[in-house]
């Protein structure tokens, strides 16, 4: 369907035209039939007129016709015709207009009128009627001596020019009226469709005027028909979602710029200060080392951002093999032992060695390392961190929990957002705020799930395979 307006107009006009055509044809045929019947009745009445001037006296039949009373049978132009014959075929009388010609009677006459159409003797199209009449006795005397009444076949014919003209006039009127009605219906349909589609036009205009830089909270559409209300509501909801996504993108871009500003500022200051004292070779060498470290850190940040972008575009590919989560957790916790010791944390590792799961080893290493790192870093000093593994049939989940008194349930939905920090005061220059965002994107692409929960000040991060993750989120 290219256009609702075209569709509605074409269907309304087409339908109306069909109905009107049907009605017009019906009217035409009904009226035509009625005119023909009226014409035939008129012919039959003429036959009865002849019956009234037929008399039988004894055996003799008299016909008292007056040309003055019925001049149409005597005129020379467009005359009517009649012919009276006895039942045995003998001619009783015929109209002057016949001029000694006979009228052909293709039907067997009966006591009722029988009509047919045929060409008149002068060649014009005509209508005929034939009826077998019993002649009236002038002096009827009942009894056996009364002679049998003669029977005469009366045939009357007249031209149908007037009937045809009336039918043509009727046809012309019906066609003209039908066309006018179609035009009227077309105009009304156009107006109605236009008015009916006006809310859709308003919706289109409102959408057209939406500025992507300043998305409105709601489309201001005024009253809408019930059919379009859901569309407007869904559009409002869509705009809200787009606004949220754009806001997140803007925030991420600002955060990226902000995160890059600091190392750029470091590079600038370190190099400028080093350049101010050209005689300090040791200082310059130290500055170069610092510049290298900063560049590495920037490189790491940019790599993570690129990885996130590639994940978003679906450009990353993954391996799938058996990974021993128990060994992985053990190895990673050992590598983070210094942080654990420095912060006085107790790490309760309940993941048994040999607990194997299917996944990309590199992805699992990044994600588990990030979760462990976060737990060790954000857990309050001298608190406890616990890690456990649960398997139910084909489903598995790795749960890491730690105290997080400052985290609220409302914070959970922001955890996977790039650069999100609970406290806007920087926690650590080396923590970019991209770890969980990257981990969430990685597990999602790798057919796993990462979910967060908080209860009584205890934070729980759960890494699970797809089924386990869906059960986790639904529970």
């Amino acid at each position, binding site marked *: 369907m290219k256009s609702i307006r075209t569709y509605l107009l074409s269907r309304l006009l087409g339908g109306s035209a069909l109905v009107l055509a049907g009605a017009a044809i019906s009217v035409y045929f009904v009226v035509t039939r009625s005119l023909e019947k009226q014409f035939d009745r008129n012919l039959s009445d003429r036959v009865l007129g002849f019956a009234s001037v037929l008399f039988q006296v004894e055996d003799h039949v008299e016909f008292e016709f007056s040309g003055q009373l019925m001049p149409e049978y005597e005129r020379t132009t467009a005359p009517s015709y009649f012919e009276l014959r006895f039942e045995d075929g003998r001619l009783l009388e015929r109209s002057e207009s016949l001029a000694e010609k006979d009228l052909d009677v293709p039907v067997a006459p009966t006591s009722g009128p029988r009509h047919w159409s045929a060409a008149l003797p002068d060649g014009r199209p005509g209508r005929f009627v034939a009826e077998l009449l019993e002649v009236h006795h002038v002096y009827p005397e009942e009894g056996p001596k009364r002679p049998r009444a003669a029977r005469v076949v009366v045939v009357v014919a007249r031209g149908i020019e007037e009937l045809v003209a009336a039918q043509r006039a009727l046809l012309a009127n019906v066609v003209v009226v039908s066309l006018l009605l179609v035009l009227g219906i077309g105009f009304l349909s156009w107006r109605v469709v236009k008015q009916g589609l006006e809310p859709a036009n308003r919706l289109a205009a409102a959408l057209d005027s939406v500025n992507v830089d300043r998305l409105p909270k709601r489309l201001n559409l005024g009253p809408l028909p019930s059919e379009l209300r859901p569309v407007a509501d869904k559009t409002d909801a869509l705009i809200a979602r787009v606004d949220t996504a754009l806001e997140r993108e803007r925030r991420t871009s600002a955060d990226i710029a*902000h995160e890059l500003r600091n190392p750029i500022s470091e590079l600038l200051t370190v190099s*400028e200060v080093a350049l101010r004292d050209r005689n300090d070779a040791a200082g310059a060498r130290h500055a170069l080392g610092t510049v290298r470290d900063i560049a590495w850190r920037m490189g790491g940040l940019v790599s993570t951002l690129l990885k996130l972008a590639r994940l978003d575009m679906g450009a990353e590919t993954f391996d799938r093999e058996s990974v021993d989560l128990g060994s992985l957790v053990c190895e990673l916790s050992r590598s983070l032992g210094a942080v654990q010791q420095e912060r006085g944390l107790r790490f309760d590792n309940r993941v048994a060695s040999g607990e194997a799961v299917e996944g990309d080893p590199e992805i699992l290493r990044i994600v588990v390392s990030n979760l462990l790192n976060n737990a060790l870093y954000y857990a309050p000093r001298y608190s406890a961190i616990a890690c456990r593994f649960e398997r139910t049939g084909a489903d598995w989940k790795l749960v890491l929990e730690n105290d997080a008194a400052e985290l609220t349930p409302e914070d959970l939905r922001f955890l996977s957002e790039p650069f999100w920090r609970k406290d806007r005061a920087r926690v*650590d220059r080396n923590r970019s705020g991209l770890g969980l965002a990257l981990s969430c994107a990685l597990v999602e692409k790798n057919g796993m799930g990462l979910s967060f929960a908080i209860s009584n000040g205890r934070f729980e991060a759960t890494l699970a395979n797809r089924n386990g993750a869906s059960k986790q989120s639904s529970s």
Partner: protein
Amino acid sequence: MRVLIVEDSEPLRESLRLGLTREGFAVDVADDGEVGLSQARNNPYDVLVLDLMLPRLSGMEILERLRDRHDRPHVLVLTARDQLHDRVRGLNAGADDYLVKPFAFEELLARIHALVRRRYQEQSPVLNIGDLSIDVVGHTATFGGNLLDLTAREYSVLEYLALRRGQITTREEIEDHIYGVHKLPSSNAVDSTICVLRAKLGPGGRDLIRTRRGQGYLLGEARA
């Protein structure tokens, strides 16, 4: 002049410390908000260079906690936040100046000098006391038109006395403003520096720096 840098980025912090020290400032550093606030409260800094995003205590909170102290240093906020509302908020919280990262070290230096002048109510970057003229931007001093050959420490003491000209400055005040927290001067370091300065000023300027026994030193004529 004594400056405190509160900045969590080690490369930036250490470079600023090095650069400002070379410029003759006594520089202390702090790598988180709590330590920075404690140092700012307990030492007479002339300028506080403050990052806003700090561990433990944000720069904004430090500003708010220092705002009501009459002896608080002038604050130069150093931050990556460049939005107008961030600047307005920082200035309203008590910052005296605002520098957005990344910045040129020269600009930072000029702004610190301007804050020092404002602190001592000086309009001009050149201080004139009789025949003595001190260019606080160029870090040079002349007496009777002759350039004085001063070490960074000697220049700092002379500049501090010049900024407080007409007022008696105690030995402790000089120590507080010329030496950082971690550089404890020897007991007669200030006296020796003053002695050297008098010698370098020559016979004509020997009486420019006067000793008020039991009180301190006075540069120029005493204010009434």
